[in-house]
């Protein structure tokens, strides 16, 4: 790609403001991207500590460290924080940093709103975390907050939880609007939709999904609010309501949410694998088409999360068939990544290692997903540790490994320094081992009959639980290496070239490293 950069473009702009004000008032997409990423890292570590508390309690049978009511608060908060505080903001952070650069835009389309959509988040999460210190404790009904456990039987702090979810929704919707406006309107001349990097494509679809489902989430928590405080009975059977309605509405949000958390990951991996295989992505067209059809098809399978609520037989069959049919076209995208590696010329720097682990482990998560789609078999898997294993395989070595891969991939561009490869590889191998030691035995636990969300368990589950807890601490502690590596990469290190990686292609690699505060104030010319 041939681009002409206006070398003096930064001279006319002004640099970042001095002091803390820079971060509060910034409208710069790079600053906001950085804020999102730090915030998400902080939340990742917070949610991680909760996970470690859970795993410490589950290390052996009996109640040792925490009481069941606190255990339930930990599982709930861990889920909410990881989904809404760690994974989603991390993807938005990467989008903020990379999308304007990838499409040759000077900034996001709506920079002030961008600032607002970030700064809502710290308040939303402070509000949510503060519930842990309230009388009666924080939310204790699981991240899926099924009614009536989350309405009639909830602790008083549930109202704060509802408002926190509302605020996260505002933030996500504004972020999504901004991303769509940027992609559709701010592309440099010649950057047609056909040339968009796959990360941009997947984010475009993700943003539409966000706008479609966040209001559904807001709606369902508002109905809860009405039930709790204003005497309605949406979910209260005693008043003529329907507790199952809650689950339908929740999963109508929840299933597309799954794609929201994995599509940008597909995008990142589709950037990284071609770079380190030194070969173009296999089947770019198929990837784009499959991704865009997900925007609609992901709304048709929500009730496969509810096979045991007593759906009528026809409903059960519909959701089983639809799930199986939809799984194939999205699942086989793994083949495209493998075909990209086939007859490439591969090297294995840290980002590539994380991307390869993503492909393997996400596929394992896909397999267990396929098994869960078989409704009669799902009766034996549903709400057991098998499900816990399944979605952690999709989300931890899936979404989170892709975020780490992306962070390592673009860090040299952000900081101007190469990262410490040795440390990066150490982080990778410890994480890889930790993740598998933690989550693989959970398949066995679930199949052997251990339900999820229990603070104590029967003796035959003791061995694998102990193994999983050891793995969790390996994984958790190895993240300190990640933090150290990021900080030392910001502080210094070998200077990065503009192209950074030998095989990298795309607009972002034509910019100097570190990328100047203002980029593409003159649109690049793309041939």
């Amino acid at each position, binding site marked *: 790609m041939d681009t002409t950069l206006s070398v003096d473009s930064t001279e006319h702009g002004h640099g970042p403001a001095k002091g803390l004000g820079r971060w509060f008032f910034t409208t710069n997409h790079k600053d906001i991207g950085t804020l999102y990423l730090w915030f998400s890292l902080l939340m990742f570590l917070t949610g991680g500590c909760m996970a470690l508390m859970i795993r410490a309690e589950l290390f052996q049978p009996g109640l040792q460290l925490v009481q069941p009511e606190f255990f339930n608060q930990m599982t709930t908060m861990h889920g909410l924080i990881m989904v809404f505080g760690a994974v989603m903001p991390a993807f938005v952070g990467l989008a903020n940093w990379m999308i304007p650069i990838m499409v040759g835009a000077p900034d996001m389309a709506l920079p002030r709103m961008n600032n607002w959509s970030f700064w809502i988040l710290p308040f939303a999460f402070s509000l949510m975390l503060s519930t842990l210190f309230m009388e009666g404790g924080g939310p204790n009904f699981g991240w899926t907050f099924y009614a009536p456990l989350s309405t009639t039987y909830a602790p008083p702090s549930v109202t704060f939880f509802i408002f926190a979810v509302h605020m996260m929704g505002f933030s996500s919707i504004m972020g999504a609007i901004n991303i769509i406006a940027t992609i559709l309107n701010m592309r440099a001349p010649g950057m*047609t*939709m*056909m040339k968009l990097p796959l990360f941009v494509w997947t984010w475009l679809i993700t943003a539409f999904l966000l706008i479609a489902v966040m209001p559904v989430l807001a709606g369902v928590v508002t109905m809860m609010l009405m039930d709790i405080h204003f005497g309605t009975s949406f979910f209260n059977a005693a008043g003529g309501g329907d507790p199952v309605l809650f689950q339908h509405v929740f999963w109508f949000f929840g299933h597309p949410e799954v794609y929201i958390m994995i599509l940008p990951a597909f995008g990142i991996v589709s950037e990284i694998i071609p770079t380190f295989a030194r070969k173009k992505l296999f*089947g*770019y*067209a*198929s990837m*784009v*088409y*499959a991704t*865009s*059809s997900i925007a*609609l*098809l992901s709304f*048709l399978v929500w009730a496969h999360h509810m096979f045991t609520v007593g759906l009528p*037989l*026809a409903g059960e*069959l*519909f959701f089983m*068939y*639809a799930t199986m*049919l939809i799984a*194939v*076209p*999205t699942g*086989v*995208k793994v083949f495209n990544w493998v075909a990209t590696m086939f007859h490439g010329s591969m090297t294995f720097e840290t980002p590539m290692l994380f991307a390869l682990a993503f492909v393997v482990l996400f596929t394992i998560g896909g397999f267990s997903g396929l098994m869960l789609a078989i409704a009669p078999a799902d009766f034996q898997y549903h709400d057991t540790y098998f499900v816990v294993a399944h979605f952690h395989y999709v989300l931890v070595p899936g979404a989170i490994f892709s975020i780490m891969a992306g962070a390592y991939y673009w860090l040299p561009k952000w900081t101007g320094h190469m990262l410490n490869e040795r440390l990066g590889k150490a982080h990778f191998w410890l994480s890889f081992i930790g993740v598998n030691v933690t989550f693989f035995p959970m398949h066995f636990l679930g199949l052997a009959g251990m339900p999820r969300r229990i603070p104590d368990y029967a003796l035959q589950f003791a061995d694998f639980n102990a193994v999983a807890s050891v793995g969790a601490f390996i994984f958790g502690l190895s993240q300190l290496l990640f933090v150290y590596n990021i900080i030392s990469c910001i502080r210094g290190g070998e200077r990065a070239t503009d192209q950074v990686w030998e095989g990298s292609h795309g607009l972002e690699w034509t910019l100097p490293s570190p990328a100047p505060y203002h980029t593409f104030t003159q649109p690049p010319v793309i041939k």
Partner: protein
Amino acid sequence: MSDPKKNGLFKAALSALAAMFGVQSERNRQEDFSSGSPLRYLLTGVLMVALFVVGVILLVRLALMLAGG
């Protein structure tokens, strides 16, 4: 298929189908993306999804009928 508009609709439907199947060739993609308005593709896409739903419902009916339900 001499009528270009009719032809276009048919092509859009094929592309929507390709998207749902998850495979599309680079040549067809070039054609799709140079054909101007995306609106036609969006509409046919929604229509195809509706047809997909109807199709799965029919499949369920068939399965229940075969089982004598």
